[in-house]
């Protein structure tokens, strides 16, 4: 909401209040002033009269002699504007004048002296939307009433105003009226607001009908005024509109807008003679195309409110008038509409048509429904004054509103209980009075407050408490921690486990944070853990953020890609984030590794591999107390071209697939613009693991007797896994086998389809030292079993 400081000053005395002081006080009281701007910041201007004007040969320039009055005399000015001509009154910026575009200097142009510049309003810093065609292409043409030599030209143009931009919150639609802004300032600075004199006009009877066929229009009033003249508004009207951000059109339209800016009540004007019938009926069951004042055609649906005449849409109610019935320069007789439309209905139509107007803004936020007669009379007086009028009709009204007062019983106890203050009843009462509340039924410990009509947001005792504290400030609030039962703030088991995992991962991996919303392509990559369709937004901002991601891996790969492109290499990242698919919310962990792991800076580096991922997985399982027997890594069998089929695995918890890990498939690298760097990815449904119950640890006595180790070098087929060899050894070695570990894998060209696997077997007994014979017998048993499985001993 833009507010004119000069207009405000007409409504409440601001002589000792600068815009800055007002802004600070209002902001603290909950009405944030976002900015303070001058309409035009130009200075050193004077009205000039073009005495001579000649086109300079072979240029578009004019050599002008301009009379600047007695103080500055006659000056030579070179002007390039197409519309400069003899006998024109113009705005001249003198040398030294500061305009938004820079400082004006005396200069020599094409060898000719020029002592200033003839200006357009655009050059004075006026927004293009308020200037007409002439100013857009040339200089401003002043009317005859301007006096040569006048240095207060900005004032006489109505452009010497300062504009406050209010950031309006949804609870203060009343401040969409400058009169209510004046009242707010009156409250905050404890000063009187001037009354707006309203002439009570009864008018003559008229044959005109108004009505509504829907509850969404609870009130509609009209008045017919005949014999008016449509013309340009005088500066005294236009200046207010411009300062408040509304473009002047003509006197009739401008009066409607002026009354709306002043009171917050939209006013619409129709050309009586263009209405098919002397009636205006509000309907919500009209369908078809509506040609609006902005020259666009809008499709209207059932449910959209329209003002009709003879069943034809004349106005998109509360939003924009139609071309058919709008007034023009030839309009002689008008109908003024002052109505109330349901905020929700206007909001829906306004959003659907993507059409927002000053009027729709006010209706969607809610208007004061009790002032329509005053508004009508105010508009009528102005029409009479500025447009002339031969006859004014009575006000024809349809009104179903229950204009009841909202009474709230106030006690000091209630207010103080909300605010933590210690105000007495009188303090509260005087504050509310200052805030334009009506006070009734004053008793010893309570009174009744009636909200001013414009404060439609006031609804209960908490609202009154807010009024009191925003006006009086927070310094009287007693500041203390609530005296509550002491309870420990502890994390849940799941949260604690997740925190431990983050701590562990963060010692070697960067914890990153990526966008949940991804593009269609990314939403279809790495979807092994989710078979359901990802959520799709119906109103995305861009294609880049259209789907709720079903996997973390694509986002993490994009982070890797970005970093590799920015010369960051050899690192690992992880993210723990919720994944939402099909009414389910699960917490996922994604890890992506690239290049080498730095074991000791650049001195000792080990390439990241499948086993790096497996290491993280095993550590997490161990931290969560999940035994190896409870989960299963299987060879990759999900196909696709995202993961290397020979270097990837799936992770199962029982029958449920809860994760996967592996090397990126060669065909997947180009998808992410990654070149010359190996990448490994792992994704786990962490929530499936966090929710598992882990058994408690239990002490087991450590054997006092020494153990024995024996190494075996085995030749096995390539496709035999180490785990299988270990299982054979453990199964056949019996109780004496304590541990089996692979310590070497070797392969060369001569070994064809076999490889060498070297294992070290630890044997021992809890209750005695192992005898050589026992050891040898066990090893022989193992060897025999291995041979049976086609595994030979080297």
């Amino acid at each position: 909401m833009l507010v004119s400081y000069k207009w405000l000053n007409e409504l409440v005395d601001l002589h000792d209040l600068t815009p800055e002081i007002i802004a600070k006080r209002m902001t603290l009281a909950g009405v944030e002033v976002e900015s303070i701007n001058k309409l035009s910041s130009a200075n050193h201007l004077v009205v000039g009269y073009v005495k001579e004007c000649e086109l300079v040969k072979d240029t578009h320039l004019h050599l002008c002699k301009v009379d600047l009055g007695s103080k500055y005399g006659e000056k030579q000015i070179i002007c390039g504007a197409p519309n400069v001509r003899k006998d024109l009154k113009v705005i001249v910026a003198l040398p030294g004048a500061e305009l938004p575009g820079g400082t004006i200097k005396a200069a020599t142009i094409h060898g000719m002296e020029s002592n200033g510049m003839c200006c357009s309003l655009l050059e004075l810093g006026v927004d293009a939307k308020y200037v007409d065609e002439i100013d857009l292409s040339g200089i401003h043409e002043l009317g005859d009433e301007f006096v040569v030599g006048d240095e207060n030209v900005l004032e006489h143009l109505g452009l010497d105003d300062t504009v406050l931009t209010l950031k309006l919150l949804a609870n203060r639609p009343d401040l969409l009226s400058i009169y209510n802004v004046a009242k707010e300032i009156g409250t905050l600075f404890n000063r009187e607001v001037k009354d707006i004199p309203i002439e009570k006009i009864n008018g003559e009877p008229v044959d005109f009908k108004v009505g509504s066929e829907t509850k969404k229009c609870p009130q509609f009033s009209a008045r017919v005024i005949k014999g008016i003249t449509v013309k340009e508004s005088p500066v005294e009207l236009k200046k207010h509109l411009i300062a408040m951000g509304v473009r002047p059109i003509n006197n009739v339209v401008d009066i409607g807008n002026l009354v709306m800016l002043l009171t917050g009540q939209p006013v619409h004007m129709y050309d009586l003679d263009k209405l098919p019938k002397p009636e205006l009926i509000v309907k919500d069951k009209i369908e078809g195309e509506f040609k609006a004042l902005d020259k666009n055609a809008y499709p209207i649906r059932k449910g959209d409110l329209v003002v009709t005449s003879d069943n034809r849409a004349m106005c998109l109610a509360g939003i924009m008038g139609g071309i058919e019935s709008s007034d023009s320069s030839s309009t002689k007789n008008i109908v003024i509409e002052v109505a109330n439309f349901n905020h929700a209905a206007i909001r829906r139509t306004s959003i659907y048509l993507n059409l927002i107007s000053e009027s729709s803004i006010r209706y969607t936020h809610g208007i004061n429904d009790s002032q329509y007669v005053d508004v009508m009379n105010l508009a009528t007086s102005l029409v009479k004054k500025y447009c002339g009028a031969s006859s004014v009709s009575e006000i024809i009204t349809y009104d179903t509103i229950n204009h009841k007062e909202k009474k709230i019983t106030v006690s000091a106890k209630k207010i103080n209980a909300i605010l933590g203050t210690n105000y007495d009843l009188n303090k509260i009462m005087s504050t509310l009075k200052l805030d334009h509340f009506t006070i009734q039924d004053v008793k010893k410990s309570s009174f009744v407050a009636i909200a001013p009509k414009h404060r439609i947001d006031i609804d209960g005792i908490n609202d009154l408490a807010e009024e009191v504290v925003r006006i009086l400030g927070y310094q009287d609030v007693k500041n203390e921690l609530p005296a509550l039962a002491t309870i420990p703030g502890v994390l849940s088991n799941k949260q604690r486990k997740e925190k431990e995992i983050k701590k562990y991962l963060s010692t070697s991996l960067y914890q990153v944070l990526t966008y949940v919303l991804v593009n269609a392509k990314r939403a279809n990559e790495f979807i092994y853990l989710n078979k359901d369709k990802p959520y799709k937004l119906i109103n995305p901002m861009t294609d880049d953020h259209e789907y709720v991601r079903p996997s973390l891996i694509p986002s993490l790969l994009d982070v890797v890609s970005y970093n590799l492109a920015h010369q960051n290499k050899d690192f690992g990242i992880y993210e723990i984030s919720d994944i939402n698919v099909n009414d389910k919310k699960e917490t996922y962990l994604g890890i992506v590794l690239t290049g080498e792991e730095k074991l000791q800076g650049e001195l000792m580096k080990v390439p990241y591999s499948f086993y790096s991922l497996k290491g993280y997985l095993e550590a997490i399982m161990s931290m969560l107390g999940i035994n190896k027997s409870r989960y299963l890594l299987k060879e990759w069998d999900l196909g696709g071209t995202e993961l290397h089929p020979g270097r990837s695995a799936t992770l199962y918890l029982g029958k449920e697939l809860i994760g996967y890990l592996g090397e990126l498939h060669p065909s997947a690298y180009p998808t992410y613009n990654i070149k010359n760097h190996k990448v490994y990815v792992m994704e786990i449904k962490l929530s499936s693991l966090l929710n598992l119950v882990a058994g408690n640890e239990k002490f087991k006595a450590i054997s006092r007797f020494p153990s024995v180790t024996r190494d075996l070098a085995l030749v096995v087929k390539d496709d035999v896994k180490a785990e299988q060899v270990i299982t054979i050894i453990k199964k056949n070695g019996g109780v004496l086998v304590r541990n089996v570990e692979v310590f070497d894998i070797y392969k060369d060209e001569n070994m064809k389809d076999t490889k060498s696997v070297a294992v070290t077997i630890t044997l021992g007994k809890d209750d005695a030292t192992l005898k050589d014979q026992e050891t040898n017998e066990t090893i022989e048993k193992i060897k025999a079993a291995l041979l049976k499985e086609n595994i030979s001993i080297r």
Partner: protein
Amino acid sequence: MDLEELKEKALKAIKDAKDELELTNVRNLFLSKKSEINQKMGSLKDLKEDERKSLGQKINDTRNAISNAFSQKFNDIKAYNLNLKLKRETIDISLPGAGIKNIGINPLYLVEDEIINIFLGMGYSVYEGSDVETDHFNFELMNIPKDHPAREMQDTFYIDKTLLMRTHTSPAQAHAMSEANGGPVRIICPGKCFRRDDDDLIHSHQFRQIEGLLIDKNINIGHLEKTLETFVKKLFGEKREIRMRSSYFPFTEPSVEVDVSCDKCGGKGCPVCKGTGYLEILGAGIVNPRVLKLNGYDPKEYSGFAFGIGIERVAILKYGIDDIRRFYTNDIRFLNEFKRR
């Protein structure tokens, strides 16, 4: 040679020996079977009982003295040699350490963890919400009915008519209240939020908030102010002050914006705080009685306060970060500027 002479000669030879080889030679010369001293010992048997005893004692003493000197020297040489060896093994202690590192982290996590810890200390527990919410929880139960103008303040990503990307962490309030069954609540809810904003220096379509909610008996603005002041001083430092400004949120009444005094100027006003002396950090207020009613509470019995902290905003203020998009780009060089401490 008499014994004294022999001893002196031997001790000198031991002393002069430069390494193990020389020392062994000296040992062979003076202590071997064929050595003079042992020969002398052998000749004892020809002496009389008493002479044999006294001379034997002397020879023994001499031999022990030589032997001890030898051992001593031998140990010295060994120690010297070991030292030499160790010296040769000297490493460059300036090279990087191996193994466990403290690696960079997205600063939003640091800030969030710090805030969570502060509120855990005040008896709050952590409540988890969901990125995808229903219109009912995100808006209706927060006193933002359909067609409420406040919905325009929070331009929403919709999945369908009922599902949306939550625009704030406030729906966690409604979930927590429904789980508390009309009893007291003390929770914070950290999480992601989404609004239809174009990403630029100061806007992000995705951002993080921490919602706070306390419901109990006789809760007022003063309780809210002290709680937030405690939080701000713990997070930003004891010198920082807070200021409350009236504001509007549909789910609180009265509502406030909370500003923290500017770090740069201490509240006097400077370019950082645009001359106001304060920086906006969070919104808060007394839980609107309508919200209490909507969520099954009797506003006559219970009251409460709620607050919402923008994590990006806090991180930007705390670390002086210039562009909100940096949080979501995850440049390793950026992450390395922030470590868990």
